[in-house]
């Protein structure tokens, strides 16, 4: 299971499949509510410098989440 990388390390504009979300029930649930969950494809739209928020496109709509949460989203290492 070491084939995934954190969403933080993905380049802007890339589409990747979510492998897992590292975190407790609360975080997984919160992200699931926005449609970010295992096996779904998400696109990194943008990230802000200095550990700023990341904008993700999922299922045709966009959400902004904090750096801390984005770091816990593990996606496929290669598209």
């Amino acid at each position, binding site marked *: 299971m070491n084939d995934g990388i954190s969403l933080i390390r993905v380049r*802007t504009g890339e589409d990747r499949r979510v492998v897992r979300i590292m975190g407790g029930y609360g975080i997984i*649930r*919160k992200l*699931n*509510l*926005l*449609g970010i*969950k295992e096996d779904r494809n998400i696109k990194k*739209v*943008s990230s*802000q*410098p*200095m*550990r*700023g*928020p990341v*904008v993700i496109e999922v*299922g*045709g*709509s*966009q*959400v*902004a*989440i*904090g*750096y*801390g*949460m984005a770091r816990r989203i593990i996606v496929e290492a290669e598209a």
Partner: protein
Amino acid sequence: MKILLMGNPNVGKSVIFSRLTGVNVIASNYHGTTVEFTRGTIHFNQKKAEIIDVPGTYSLVPTTKAEEVAAEMLKEGDIIINVIDATNLERSLNFTLDLIESGATIIVALNIWDEACHKGINIDADKLEKMLGVPVIPTCALTGEGIKELVGRLNEAKSREVEFKDRWGEIGNIVENVQKVTRRHHTPLERLGDASVIPATGIPIALVILFLSFWLIRLIGESLIGYVFDPLFEFLWTPLMMQISDLLEGGGFLHNLLIGQLIEGKIAYMESMGLLTTGLFVPIAAVLPYIFAFYFVLSLLEDLGYLPRLAVLMDTVMHRVGLHGMGVIPMMLGLGCNVSGALSTRILETRRERFIAMTLLAISVPCMAQIAMVAGLVGKYGIKGLGTVFFTMFLVWLGLGLLLNRIIRGESPEIFVDIAPYRPPHPKVVGKKVWMRVKWFLREALPFVLLGVLFVNILYTFGIIQRIGKYTAPVVTSLFGLPEEAVGALIVGFLRKDVAVGMLVPLNLSLKQLIIASVILAMYFPCVATFAAMLRELGIWDMLKSVGIMLLATAGVGSLLNLIL
């Protein structure tokens, strides 16, 4: 009988509410516009039914204050109109299944139907109805399509007794069966949306938008004053007032109250301080044009969907002052009126954030009424006057924010927000919203302005200002370098900041004194309406703390300015 409108944030509940009840409510293209319940009535089955617009929520397990109220509210609803977003079916359905599991009686409005079609999303509403087991009606609230059918089928709303074991599996199954997506290329608006949140392009876009906004607000405000309101008062109102003045023989108590003091035999609208002169001129001719201009521009930005994108760009900065990106929304609304700014802090998740946001707002975000008056007062000195005042306010905002973030325990949560697609502002919707806000200003502000002017007259007639001036001289004169009479403005500032700024006009202050007076008037205390709103949101104890911070900050900044300017 109670009917609740419930659903995810920014799916158009408030627009449907307006359509159903004819009651206008503020709706915008971003998450969390409705932070309070709005109630209205409709006729249903020949009876009056109460209908409530509930703040948006993603699930029945609440994570923010607005969501908490929504979950609490569900128990009272007889019928739930579950508004879902056709462009985002999967996310919407999770809440729908939450509602179905709770046993509530439900009817579904499949909203934003037209945009879904444009986006190449095709949803089989009949099939969705069969799979959910509750009625589903496609609607487009902005144009009113489907609203009649929604009302017509209200009594078909159903309650089911089911439990969804594999929730996401169930949703995936429904979506797969009812939705067909034809992928197309990104539209220019979508590309602009993406560019707005990428730093390299987003920051220039933000600067252009802010610059254009200021330019437009000034242009509209100044034009309205120069071409409409000044001539109106000059040529229509002044002759009438002079007649009344003659009728009252140019003096006496009633004359002073209604017309005020004549300056060199003429009415000076900023200085006379009569109820019919200054009392009407300040709110209508000096402030209203800028209020209108500000809300026009703000409403355009809101309905376009720019604010959450600004929130993303500003997130890192906002974290430094103990908030996250969404904190820009109370600040922006606060520039219009601190009361609506204070109420909108409910979109922030924690008590700590709300305390910091409200305190910063009350101290360092002047409202449009005050900005308009300060612009009139120091505008003629150009950047040296206006620039110094606003740069000082910005430094106070930043400095105080950094400090509060240090000394108040706890951390600010991370931003977590839906970013709605850019939508071209709908002229009718924008017009209605601006009109509602202007009307609100006139209703809320006019009485207080008149009260303020009345108050000034009483204070002067009984020599109260002069007496208080003597007592407060150590602070006002020694610390801030202002004349004793300036305390009058500080007293009236409790009621209305615009009238208070106006009271500085006859004092013949130097530029330095004008700057100091403008800054401390903004900082020392919120106006009574903002105070009431903050007290309600914060409670007495935190309000006292906030007031303490205001007074300390004012004393510090006022005396510092007196030293260095």
